[in-house]
Structure formats: C-alpha cells, structure tokens
C-alpha cells in the first residue's frame, strides 16, 4: 500500500522450438513487462515483417468492421492464444472484404452520383428563369462559355489573369467558399480563357451530354434522378446491414485471432535472437513470479530462468512501477498520477493524499447540507446513475468523500446550507467546535498550525525517500533533507518561543538555525563531497558564494510561503460563511418584493452557486496545497509505467 509492487527482473533463455509456447505464457498472464533485448547484427529475422503483416491484416479487418458498423465485441473467453498464419486467415478476410467492397463501392458510386446531381441542381437553380437551351451555349460557334464553381479566394486572381483578353465574368450565386460563376468570351480567345479558368480551379458544371433544354426542364429531370439515387442508396444500406448481421461473428473471431497473433509477433520482435535460442528480458511483480515461472517451465522443459529481485533502495529508474491500491483509493491514485507516477522505491503518497485531501477540502467547505449535496453528486457520478454525469465517473468517488468530510466539518462549524444556529427537528444546531466567521483569527492560526504539521510530515517522508534511494548527500544537506528540516524546525521553534508559547530559550533555535542554514547554503559543495563529485564548485568561488546566498534566501522564503499558504484553509472557511451571509442578505432583499417564495428561491440558487462555484475553487486550492506545498517536500515521481504484455485490451489496461 505504501510502495509500488516489488518487482523482479527476469531473463529467460529459450530454445527456438519453444518460442511460441513461451510467448503465449508471457502474453497470456498480463504480468510480464517486456524490455527490448533485440540487438543489431543478430542475423536474418523475419519477425518484423510478420508483425507488420499481422498489423496490416488487423487494420483491414477493423476497416471492414467499421464499414459494416460492427463493434469488436468482448474479448473471447476461449483460448485465443494461438498464433495463426497470415496466409490461413487472409483468404477469409479477403472474401468478406470483397463482399463488403462490392456493396460499398456501389454505395459510394450512388452517393457520388447523388452528389453530382445535387451539385448540378445547385448550379442550375440560379439560372432557372433563363429561357435558353443550355446545349446551345455548350455548342456555340462564336461564344466561349463556362458555367461552374470556383474557390472564392481565386475570383480576383482569375480576373487579373485575364487582363489582356475581353471577357464577361458574372457571379450567379454568392457563396462563402464555392460561388457559382459564369465566364464568357470569344471563341478566338478560348485557349486563354480555358487555361485561366483551369489554373484558377474553376470547375465547370458537370452536366452530362444527355441533358438538353432550358434550365427549368433540366432541373425537373434532375429531381427525378435524385429521388432514384436516394432509393438505391437505401436499398444498398439494407444489404449492408444484412451482410453485417451474417458476418459479425466471423469478423470478431478473425479480429481476435489476428490481434493475438500481432501481439505475440510484436513481443517476439523485441526478443534477442541467437542462433538456436532466444533471450527474453523484462520485469514481473515478485508476487506473480512463482506462478509465471511454473507456467513457463511447463511450456518449455529446457528454459533457463534467471531472476534478479530488485531492492527498493538505490537507483531504480529503469524499473517499471505497478501501483497497488484498493478500490477505495483509486480516485486518489488518479490525483497522484496526474502529478507524477511514483518511482520504484519511492513512497507512494496515495494513502497520505487520501487522508489529507478530503480533510483540507472539508475544512474549507464545511457545511452539512452542501457537503451532503456534494456527496450525493459524487455518489451519482461514481455509480454512473445519471447518464449526463457518467463521463466524469472517475471523479465521483473523490467528490463523494470530500462531500462527506465537508459534512463532518459542517457539524464542527455548525453550518447547514449556510444557516448557522439553525433549529432542525427541534434541535438547535450549535458548532461542535468553532464558527469560523465569528472566530477569524483562531481559525487562521489553526490552519497555519495544521500546515506546519503537514509540512513536517512532508519533510519526514522526504527524508525516508532519500534513505530508501541511498541518496546520502541530499539526505544530509538537501533543502528537503535533514539540514532543510532542521532549518525549518528551528525557524518555527524560534517563532513560537519568541511569542512565549514554548518554555525553551530562543537562543537554542538561533544556533540551530545558523548551523542548518550554513549546511543548506553550502549544500552543493557538501553534496558533491559526499558523492565524490569533482570539482566541488562549478565556476569561481565568488560567484558560488553569491549564488549560495541567494539560494539560502530562496529556501527560507519558500519555507515561509509554504507555511503561510495554509492560511487559505482558514480563509476559505471564513469566506464560505461570508458568502452564505451575502446570499441571505440578497434573499431578504428579494423577500421584500417577492415574499417568502423569493427568499427561498434566492437561498436555493445561492446554495447551488456555492456548491458549484466555491466547490470548484476550494477543490483547486486543495489540489494546489497538495501538489505544491505538500508533494514538493518529498515526492519526485517520474516512475516508468508498468505495461505488461497482454492479449486482450482489458488486460492491457490493468
């Protein structure tokens, strides 16, 4: 729960004859994260071509399924872990492809015809009133004439290009992108006019030769043909639906067979190929190792398995990270992953954030009624009870828990839907602890104190992480290591004793602060010293001294700002009360004009506004406190995602 799953590095050497059996085991269990052990110069290898062929075939099947509107269906439960030969499956795919293509080609042809007919209609409509046989224009002896569409941007350019010949240019139908235009000139200039029109992308109206008569007569004929095209398209669509129904099972079967083969081939491409053997490397969660090893041994009697358990301590940047959290912690894991994925060996802060995030949120948004509304909303989102909210289901759990904590703080603050000292079912609702708006200074002090506690926890976790990663230099002298921590404690101690709240002489804290400040100031040199890094200083000593001084100043300022940042927890608790008070004032103003109805209407709208708007702002502030103030003290992240080989997408997502 506190750390990513323990991983074991696995190296396998297998005889070529067991290649497929072993790959099936590795891919079928969803626990093996493969690393690339292929290397150049290993000799001829046909697997990349095979993998490409499977990928291409898989894509073809998907395109056919897309054309038939057939979904992939559920991954099969039966053993689809065998590799099929491309040549065995291809004929079946091609047969269905041909069947589909026959109909879709016809469909595309009809659609194209319909488009042309509609386009011709669109072109002709502006000249419907002209009482002239179009075919006469087409076959005119002295007049060059072109009716068509042109990109709007080319109209001016076309006219510029025709500056040296006489012409007539009319826009028959204005359109933002495709105006219908008529270009005319003398037949003696036909070649110039035609070249200009073509280079300006003036597409002549595609009227088949058969159309004769006036525009009005042609339009009538076109309407009839458009109806005919619509009817044919409907018939073809029915044929396509029938084909989809009869072929969907077969297509799904083929898809999963080819998908499986593609996954296996992709995995094999990354194996190291020797003359008679293959080398496979990767990572397995230690808990799954024994089970996997047993299956591997039953798949290949001659397999050589070498395992290398990986300690959490030390540098482990190449170890994939598989997080282990309960369902309850999933929403918080999402919150952590948005910031960064923990490194292997680094403490996973999900549990910490699962505790601190709702508390901070609740403290800022404390209200029984509004908290319960949020909790209900979160429950509906998480349970996908309302379709409109289902896209945000992953946030549901988080919102529900924050809502419950807001309810808890609502009892502590004695606030329900903004009402304080309210009487509900004869019971007077008094604050169990404090009313923020009436004790502003107290709540702000408590908030800062809570911040100090959280930052101390952050420092301690950071120190623990340094120990785990054996980063001794930063552990001792880093800003977030022991030196930084002592500096922070001594500054806090000095402040507290200066106000007489601690019966210890402030001199002790001053001395401690100076010593730790010097350690922080010269941390770079000291860290280099511990790590054996030379030279100790990059650049001149004078420059370093100035830089170190500025750095110390920055560290002290950041301690101060980190701590004071938590004032916002108290400030928002106060602002929450203030906002509610403002809504009641507005409600009373409305009551003057609208009576009790107006009062309650404003109260309801106001509460909805607080739940939505203030809830969002408080959420953002809580995230800010968690990410910048808290995580900044100990959480580095940057871990590599554990991506096990898997034959079905469901396992890939694990």
């Amino acid at each position, binding site marked *: 729960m506190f750390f990513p799953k323990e991983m074991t590095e696995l190296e396998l050497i297998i005889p070529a004859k067991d290649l497929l059996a072993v790959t099936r085991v590795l891919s079928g269990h969803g626990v093996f994260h493969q690393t690339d052990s292929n*290397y*150049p*110069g290993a000799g001829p290898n046909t697997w990349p071509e095979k993998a*490409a062929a499977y990928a*291409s075939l898989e*894509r073809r099947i998907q395109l056919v399924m897309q054309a038939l509107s057939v979904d992939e269906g559920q991954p099969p439960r039966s053993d689809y872990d065998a590799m099929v030969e491309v040549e065995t499956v291809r004929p079946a795919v091609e047969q269905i492809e041909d069947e589909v293509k026959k109909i879709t080609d016809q469909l595309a042809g009809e659609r194209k015809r319909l488009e042309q007919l509609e386009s011709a209609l669109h072109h002709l409509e502006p000249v419907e009133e002209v009482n002239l046989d179009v075919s006469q224009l087409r076959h005119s002896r002295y007049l060059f004439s072109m009716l068509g*569409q*042109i*990109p709007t*941007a*080319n109209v*001016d*350019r*076309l006219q*510029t*290009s*025709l500056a*040296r010949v006489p012409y007539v240019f009319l826009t028959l139908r204005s359109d933002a*992108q*495709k105006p219908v235009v008529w270009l005319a000139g003398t037949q003696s200039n036909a070649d*110039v006019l035609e*070249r*200009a029109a*073509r*280079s*300006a*992308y003036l*597409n002549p109206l595609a009227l088949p030769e058969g159309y004769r008569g006036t525009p009005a007569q042609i339009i009538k004929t076109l309407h009839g043909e458009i109806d005919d095209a619509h009817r044919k398209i409907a018939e073809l669509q029915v044929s396509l639906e029938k084909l989809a129904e009869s072929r969907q099972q077969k297509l799904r079967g083929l898809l999963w067979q080819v998908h499986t083969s593609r996954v296996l081939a992709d995995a094999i491409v990354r194996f190291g190929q020797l003359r008679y053997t293959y080398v496979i490397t990767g990572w397995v969660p230690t808990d799954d190792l024994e089970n996997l090893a047993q299956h591997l041994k039953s798949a290949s009697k001659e397999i050589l398995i070498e395992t290398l358990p990986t300690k959490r301590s030390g540098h482990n940047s190449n170890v994939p990270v598989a997080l282990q959290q309960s369902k309850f912690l999933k929403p918080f894991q999402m919150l952590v992953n948005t910031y960064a994925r923990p490194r292997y060996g680094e403490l996973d802060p999900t549990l910490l954030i699962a505790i601190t995030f709702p508390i901070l949120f609740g403290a800022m948004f404390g209200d029984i009624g509004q908290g319960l509304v949020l909790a209900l909303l979160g429950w509906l989102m998480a349970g996908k009870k309302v379709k409109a909210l289902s896209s945000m289901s992953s946030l549901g759990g988080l919102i529900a828990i924050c809502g419950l904590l807001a309810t808890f703080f609502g009892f502590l603050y004695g606030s329900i839907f903004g009402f304080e000292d309210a009487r509900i079912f004869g019971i007077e609702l008094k604050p169990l602890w404090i009313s923020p708006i009436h004790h502003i200074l107290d709540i702000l002090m408590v908030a800062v104190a809570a911040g100090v506690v959280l930052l101390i926890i952050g420092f301690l976790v950071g120190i623990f992480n340094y120990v785990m990663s054996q980063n001794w230099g930063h552990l001792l002298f880093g800003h977030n290591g022991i030196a930084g921590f002592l500096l922070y404690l001594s500054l806090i101690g000095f402040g507290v004793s200066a106000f007489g709240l601690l019966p210890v002489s402030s001199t002790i804290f001053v001395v401690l602060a100076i010593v730790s400040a010097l350690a922080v100031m010269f941390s770079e040199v000291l860290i280099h010293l511990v790590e054996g890094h030379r030279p100790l200083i990059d650049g001149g000593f004078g420059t370093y001294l100035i830089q170190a001084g500025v750095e110390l100043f920055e560290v002290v300022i950041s301690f101060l700002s980190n701590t004071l940042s938590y004032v916002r927890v108290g400030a928002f608790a106060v602002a929450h009360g203030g906002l509610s008070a403002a809504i009641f004032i507005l409600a009373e103003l409305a009551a003057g004009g609208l009576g009790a109805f107006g009062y309650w209407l404003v109260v309801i709208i106001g509460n909805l506004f607080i739940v939505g708007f203030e809830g969002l702002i408080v959420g953002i502030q809580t995230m800010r406190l968690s990410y910048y103030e808290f995580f900044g003290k100990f959480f580095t992240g940057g871990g590599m995602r554990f991506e096990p080989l898997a034959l079905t997408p469901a396992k890939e997502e694990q």
Partner: protein
Amino acid sequence: MPKTGVSGYAAISARVRAMYSSLLDPQDMTRLSDAPDFQSLFAQLKQTAYGPYLDSLKDKEITPRRVIIQIKNRMADAYNSVIHMAPEHTRPLLTQLYRYFEVGNLKAILRGIVTGSSSAAALPLWERVRDVLFPYGSMSVLPAQAMVEAGSVGSAVELLHGTKYENALSFAMKRYSAEQNLFPIEVALDLEYWRELWREAKKLPGQDREQALRVAGSLIDMNNLMWAIRYRVYHQLSEEELINYTLPFGYHVRDEDVRAIAAGADIAPVVQRIYPGIPDVNALLDEPRSGLPKLEIELKRYLMNQCMAAFMGNPFHVGIPLAFLVLSDLEIQDLTVLIEAKSSQMPDEEFRPFLLKTVTAKA
C-alpha cells in the same frame, strides 16, 4: 481585449530568447561541417542542444533519415512550447505557421501513394512514407496511415472530409482526376496555406501585425518569387496560369512584380529591385539549373537576417517567436544538408555553398 506588450509577452519573450541562445552559432556549424564523416557528425551533434533527441537512438537506428527525424522532433517541441506559451490572440498565426509541416506531410503522403503504387519495394508503403513525415504530433488532422493504406489519391483525400483541407482539395481533385498529376493539388494546398497565413497575420493588432506581416510577408515573398521564376523557367507556363498560381501580396514583392515576370519581363531587374543585396543575379539566372538553387539560398539568407533583426529593439511582440521558429526551421535545413552531405561523402566545396549559416572554410 488581446494581451499585447509586456504583460502578454514577458514570459514567452524570455523563453524564446533562452531557446534562441541554444540555436547553433557559426562556430558550431563550422565544427559540424569539419566532421570527417557521418558518424563523427552524429557524435558532434550529440554535444549540441540536439543531444537529448539523439540519445534515444540505438546503434542500429543511427541512419541519416532517423537522425533527421530526431532533430526535427526538437523543432516540433519548440513549436508546441511556443504556441502553448504565446498570447491567445497570436496562437492562430503560430499554429498556421506550424501547419506548413502538416501541408508538407500531406504532400509527402500523396506522393508516396502515387510513387508507391508503381514501385516494388520490399518494405510496406506506410513504413517508407512514415520515415519522411515531419513528426507533427497530436495537432495533426491527417489520418496518415489510413491515407497511405487507402491505396489511391482519391480514397486518401476522401479521408480528409471535415478538415480544413477539404475545400481546397475538392477543387483540385477534379483536376487531378482529369490530369493524373499531383501538381494542381500541391499548388492548391500551397496557395491555401500562404493565404491563410497572411490572413492570420493581418488580423493582429498594432505592433504584432506589423511584425507578423514582416516575417510572414518575407516568407511569402521568397516562395512567391521562386514560384514565379520556376513556373516560367522550368514549367514554361502561360501568363494567365502563372498569375493564378502565385499570390498578389507579400512584404516587398508586389503583384506588379509577379505580373511582370508572368508577362515575360526580364527577371533579373525585378529580383535586384526587391533584393538589392544579392550579387550577380544575372549570372545566377543565366544558368537556371544551377543558378536557381543558389538564388533560393540567397533569399533564405536574406530571410534569416530579417528574422535575426527581429530580436533587436522592443522584444514584446509576436515577431520574436515567429522569427525564432523560422530560424529553427532554417537551422534544420542546414543540418539536413550536412547530414546528407556527410553520409554520401560529398566533398566540402560541393555542399558548403548550400549552408545558410556562414561556415569558415577548412584551412
């Protein structure tokens, strides 16, 4: 109200200046040019700001093509970072500038389909095409693999339904169907791209507009002029075709200039009027096969100087990020020349004239 001036540009100006300082200087270029072979060049490149992008290459992947893709990744990151940090009202312009590479990818895909269907190479077509695409990233609207696998230009273009390319391609495809030549498609895409860039630049207010028109206009000038010259010299297009395939706007190049070239006027005086600093234009145009690439290099050098000048004076305008991005692209072009020259063991005197940054010749 757009955030202009110090408030809008404080952060991005600092960031871009930091990135600007990581561009290669003439000493770096000289060192890289002096590398005896491709492997040494690669080792030298790893010591530069491109190092982190080259570290991930395994030994077997160190090929000229892969290295070029990796260094382009750096530029893609620079674009994404600059667009992300830029004031909101300038993002459409910067995004449009970045689209240059998407348009390039689109052209490469279509060329791949046309040439791939007629060649019998061992590798699948998509793998061959993928290697020449700019790593544009998630901003791309092109379903690249599906387009390549669609098998024909028509089917590939149909996949662009609903994208910003649909309109330009719908007109150009009619001509492609009739002529079976990608030229009208490529011209239509280019014209649409540069018109949109100009439109976006003109939308900006105040100094942003002035600076954007200067940088974008200089880019348009260079392309427009080279198109006009090539269409006349190489393609021998008619006056009306040449006018329709060029743009009537730019920073220095005027519509009259393009029309004069189209009408058959002497090209050299036109070029000399616009770019008085370019020497021996007549000599360059006398031998168009060798002269035009050299003229293009001169125009790019002029553009590079224009972009470097943007870093002088008031730093709080869009000219700074625009100029930096153009300079990054020019640097990648230089590196591409170097990588290809070193990998094909080309003699120094053959490739050095094509480097934009001045490189001291070997002693």
